[in-house]
């Protein structure tokens, strides 16, 4: 039982990171029907910007661990949001009227460009966050030691996801985003500035991805310019699992994927955990082709 709870917390921690990144994929897909391959590199960018700001501004020394981390998160999210907006302006907006395939190629190009830019600026070696930024305490619960930071990360991602959900469901701008996702033409006729909506989506999604990158950096400590690939692939899978284009779906999909991975690693084979996770994905897609919560695709037919 102890192993079960330990693996449960492991799965939740990884899953919440997947979920945060998956939101970026799903929001862009929802509005543009485009898979933003460069999203995983914005996640990496978040991790690297966090490192730079942390070591240059000495935030933690000035504001204490929690305040420092919060200010840091806000700054990283802001900067990555700007990077996301630039990405849209440079790589996607000129291709808005072109066939969708051109935008996909542009997305792949942007991904390669970002990854190699990060490598050239920061170098190819692993970079390491300064240790002892966050408290090392852990909480003893249900027979397992859970590091406090893990709980904070899970809490922070849940808060961000809940915030996004309220923003999308309850505000006027959120309504505009949903409208643009359903039918861009009709939204435009209703007086919604669709280009601004898209810009906003390209800021909010990357901001969350950047926050995820920062959390990975703060908790695991080790970052590398290729780290986005693995997380991006898993997050993309999570988005499909939950129903791509659907925001609560990405959250559910991410957490679920993390749990499936950790449980199959625990009770089946560790080497096969990815294979098992993808088998579950295939099974779910056979039963529900639009993912767990994705229903909108059917409406459009």
């Amino acid at each position: 039982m102890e192993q079960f709870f330990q693996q449960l917390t492991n799965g939740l921690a990884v899953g919440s990171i997947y979920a945060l990144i998956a939101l970026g994929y799903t929001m862009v897909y929802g509005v543009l029907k485009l898979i933003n391959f460069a999203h995983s590199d914005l996640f990496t960018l978040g991790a690297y910007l966090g490192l730079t700001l942390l070591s240059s501004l000495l935030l933690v020394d000035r504001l204490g661990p929690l305040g420092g981390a919060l200010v840091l998160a806000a700054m990283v999210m802001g900067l990555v949001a700007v990077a996301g907006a630039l990405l849209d302006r440079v790589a996607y907006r000129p291709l808005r009227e072109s066939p969708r395939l051109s935008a996909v190629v542009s997305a792949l190009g942007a991904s390669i460009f970002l990854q190699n830019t990060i490598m050239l600026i920061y170098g190819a070696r692993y970079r390491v966050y300064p240790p002892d930024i966050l408290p090392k305490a852990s909480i003893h619960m249900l027979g397992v030691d859970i590091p406090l930071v893990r709980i904070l990360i899970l809490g922070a991602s849940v808060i961000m996801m809940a915030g996004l959900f309220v923003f999308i469901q309850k505000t006027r701008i959120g309504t505009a985003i949903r409208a643009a996702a359903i039918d861009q033409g009709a939204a435009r006729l209703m007086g919604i500035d669709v280009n601004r909506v898209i810009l906003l989506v390209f800021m909010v999604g990357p901001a969350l991805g950047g926050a995820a990158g920062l959390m990975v950096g703060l908790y695991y400590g080790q970052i590398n310019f290729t780290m986005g690939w693995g997380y991006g692939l898993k997050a993309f899978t999570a988005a499909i699992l939950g129903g791509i284009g659907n925001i609560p779906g990405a959250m559910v999909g991410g957490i679920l994927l993390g749990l499936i991975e950790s449980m199959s690693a625990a009770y089946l084979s560790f080497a096969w955990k990815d294979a098992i996770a993808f088998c579950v994905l295939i099974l779910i897609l056979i039963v529900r082709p639009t993912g767990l919560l994705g229903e909108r695709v059917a409406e459009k037919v």
Partner: protein
Amino acid sequence: MKRISFVVLAMFIMLGSAHAAETVKIGLMAPMTGSWASEGAEMKQVCDLLAEQVNAKGGVAGKKIEVITEDDGGVPQTAALAAQRLAALKVTVVIGTYGSAVTEASQNIFDEQKIIQIANGSTAIRLTEKGLKYFLRTCPRDDEQAKVAAQTIRKLGVKKLAILHDNSTYAKGLADETKGLLAADKGVEIVFFDALTPKEQDYTTVLTKMKSFQPEMVFFTGYYGEAGLLLKQAKQMNWKVTFMGGDATNNPDLVKSAGKDASAGFYFLSAPLPKDLPSEDAKAFLAAFTKKYGNPPNSIYAVLAGDGLRVVLEAIAKTNSTDTGKVADYLHKNLKDFPGLTGKISFNEKGDRVGEVYRVYKVNEEGLFILQP
């Protein structure tokens, strides 16, 4: 006027080709991008520095040497393209590359063109079992390493062992070899044998699972990035177990990732580190490297690439020829106990380096790598 310019042009062409004939072209195939880009960058630094030193002394066999770097990206497909480009440039020798699967993709291309290839980090056994005349390597083979691993595990009195690899050709090969060597041994029980997925940041799931089998030692055959995270996360879980790594964990970045407290007590196998090399050549080279680039080389594989370049230059100088057949014969048969940066170098008929290369290292409290007796 037209005629004059034609003559001038012809002279330039002749001069140009005469000039080109005076250099010995050395190809360096290295991962300049991709996950191993840090290895590639150092390989290039080492080879550039050596070429500079050799050229300052007048080159080899009366010719200057020229190092041409091609990026293999750490990926077999890219390596095949890089190999074709180097072959088209008519290089005499190619130094590299790091990963075994990557080297394998380029082996036949070079062999068909009779270009000598000296790999520096490709330790998979089968690479030299193909009978390729022009392939050699300065790094040892995995079976060599597995032998030392098994010896060390017995010597430390480990009764219950967990083996973890990462499904890469190299790591799985080493894990399988070690398992095979220990299978006959009644004293050591292998309680866990599985693979992790590289490039994930969170290895608490596999650690939790391994912990439930209560091994006394975990032998991880993968790379240093993952090893650092394993050590750090095991420490966070309050799991006190001895870790040992293969030679791919030999990198100071391991200590940075794991932190000094978590990496203390970590054993790993490796060719001797540059700092433990007694030879004057090695010390002088390290000093020159530090002077030029600001820090000593991190990776032993970069130094092994340098040794590849050095033995080839030695063979060209001794045979006074850039005929690759002669040079390859010299390397296989006549080169004996060449004073390399990483120790004495001789090759057997397969192109493998002869002699015991591996040592056991342990990380101390300050995060330094200490050679074990």
